[in-house]
């Protein structure tokens, strides 16, 4: 049995669902999302979900992140409440030579329109009294915030389905072939054919690429996050590495480990994460940790998004990136522009997979 669609999207995480939703705004049917599991089982369900811009460098990447973050203001009006809050972001520093770095960051980001203030010790403590008094200063920007990733993916999916998108869950893509202008996508539950194919399989994009003879340079980088009991609101801003969610829990995490696809947590990292948190916000010593989880960052070889058409195979697109929560509204918009109009409203050549050739 073969089922025909105009566009098949492999992977229904924040990136795949974001693309499906944005594409469905202009094309009402013919879109299928296939996920081998359920859409929050991958990186998108085990993330910190900062919508974070101001420290993203070089500034062309900061600018790209800023455009995406600006789309968030509209997104929640279109797809419903996703608990997006533009809290403002603080990146504190604890040594004098970091102050120089902060100043040059503020200057270079200003050139692309990202406003950053370099705060001195008193200013940062006045804004966020919970911070350690050992802090020497911080960069601060209004633009940063955070979102509830579970809600985000769920609302993308709901809105996409209302627009006519079909979802296949618990169905793994096992092979892909291109024949006479169509992709033949073999899954555990049968064959699908389509004209356009989007690869948005997160850390598994490498594995999926192999089905087409491609070597897509994406690999998993593990991150462990620990979560406190719900605490009375005491932090206003999103800090680099730690934030208080709207339900009062504090999410803490900064580890970056090469551990393949292993998603276990280890107390060694939880211990160092706890020390990191205490150095930043000493009062957390009184908080109870209720759980921890680990997730896999979708890490392209040079850490920048891989986004756009894949040259040599017509109608094949890729969207694989770290910081996919921040970038999903923009990635979704750009890939749908490519599919519907053949060009994008901002240049994306820099993110082409051809850079690895």
């Amino acid at each position, binding site marked *: 049995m073969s089922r025909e669609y105009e566009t098949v999207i492999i992977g229904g995480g924040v990136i795949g669902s974001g693309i499906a939703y944005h594409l469905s705004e202009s094309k009402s049917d013919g879109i299928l999302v296939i996920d081998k599991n359920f859409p929050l089982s991958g990186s998108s369900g085990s993330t910190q979900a900062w919508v974070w811009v101001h420290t993203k460098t070089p500034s062309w990447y900061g600018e790209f992140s800023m455009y995406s973050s600006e789309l968030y203001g509209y997104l929640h009006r279109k797809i419903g409440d996703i608990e997006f809050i533009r809290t403002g972001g603080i990146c504190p520093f604890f040594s004098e030579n970091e102050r120089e770095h902060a100043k040059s960051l503020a200057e270079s980001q200003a050139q692309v329109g990202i406003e950053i203030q370099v705060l001195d010790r008193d200013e940062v403590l006045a804004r966020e009294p919970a911070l350690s008094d050992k802090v020497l200063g911080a960069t601060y920007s209004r633009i940063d915030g955070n979102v509830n990733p579970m809600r985000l993916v769920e609302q993308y999916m709901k809105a996409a389905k209302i627009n006519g998108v079909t979802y296949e869950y618990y169905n793994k893509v096992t092979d892909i072939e291109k024949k006479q202008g169509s992709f033949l996508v073999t899954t555990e539950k049968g064959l699908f054919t389509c004209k356009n194919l989007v690869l948005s399989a997160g850390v598994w994009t490498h594995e999926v690429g192999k089905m087409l003879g491609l070597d897509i340079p994406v690999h998993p980088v593990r991150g462990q996050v620990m979560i406190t009991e719900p605490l009375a609101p005491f932090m206003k801003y999103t800090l680099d590495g730690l934030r208080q969610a709207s339900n009062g829990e504090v999410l803490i995490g900064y580890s970056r480990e090469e551990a393949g696809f*292993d*998603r*276990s*947590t*280890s*107390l*060694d*990292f*939880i*211990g160092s994460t706890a020390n990191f948190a205490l150095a930043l916000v000493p009062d957390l010593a009184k908080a109870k940790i209720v*759980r*921890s989880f680990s997730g896999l960052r979708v890490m392209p070889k040079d850490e920048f998004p891989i986004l756009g058409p894949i040259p040599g195979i017509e109608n094949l697109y890729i969207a694989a990136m770290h910081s996919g929560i921040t970038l999903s509204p923009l990635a979704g918009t750009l890939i749908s522009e490519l599919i519907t109009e053949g060009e994008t409203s901002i240049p994306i050549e820099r993110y082409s997979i051809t850079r690895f050739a």
Partner: protein
Amino acid sequence: METEVLILGGGPSGLAAAYEVASRGHGVMIVDEAWALGGQLRQQTQIIDPIPAPFTGLRGFQLAETLVERLKEFPVEYLLKHEFIGLFADGSAGVSGGEKILRISAKCFVVATGAAESARHFPGWTLPGVMTIGAAQILINRERIYPGKTGLVVGSSDMALEITRQMHDVGINVIGVVEPTSQILAKDGKIVSSLQETGIPVLLQTEVVAVSGSGKVETVLLSSGNKPGVETDCQVDFVCIDGGRHPILEPFSIMNCPLRYEKELGGWLPSYNGKLQSTNSGIFVAGQAAGVTCQAGVVLTGAIAGINAVDYLENGTAEARESCKQVYWDELKRIESTQTPEVWQARMSHMG
């Protein structure tokens, strides 16, 4: 700290596992987050039946005491008031007493952390005074506190009817047991008839529409399938929910053991083979954590897991141990395949 077999959970299955390991001369340590051993048996006052010899005729808490007593002649180590919270990168376990994290390295683990009760949801289910049936049992039998004066029980499993009778015995006015389906779910005829003797009615095809009150339970609103459209008010000060139990999964997530859904065995539970061994060969599972629901099975799977842990330590089995395991499996089959054949079948297919 170091041990050969680290047992997580000192309930009946963990205690039974410890006996098999310690009596064969291997080192065992039991970690439990509670301040006493015995697990959920500590508040069970009914006679446990069926149960294999030498445990016949004992009440729940007495069975727990006997299982603890039996270990006294062996050098078993205990770490109470410590919760298993994670693994270190080298595979040793981290347990926390609230302040510090202790590191315990072990050659293998038996996970016997039991089950948690599931809720049923209706408007007002978070009001103080709504509790699980097991919580009511802990209050009356362990803490000697009345959960309330006048109550209602929602659900009709063996455990719910048994505890309803216990509440009646201590002088609590239970106005009824409501069961949404068209039949009593309890399978044990003795439990059903002993409830009937109390005169407490079981209202079939009846559902809780809502619980209300200012700051605590005051009224429950019931609707009956027999009289569509009619809703009845009852004045109560507590409501017990019998929502069944499900294996506690956190230890398995921590240990990266894959989970599978088995409806008959209580929902999600770790995958394990015929040796009660998870996909990680050094981790054995037993008792309610493994989806075993009958009391005999809890003790027997604990014992079997314990012997398998010994096999693991000794890199192979021995004839005496094999025949011992066979006796336990036969016993389990005899009890379970007559009481709850669907559960026995489900476990056989789970073990593959």
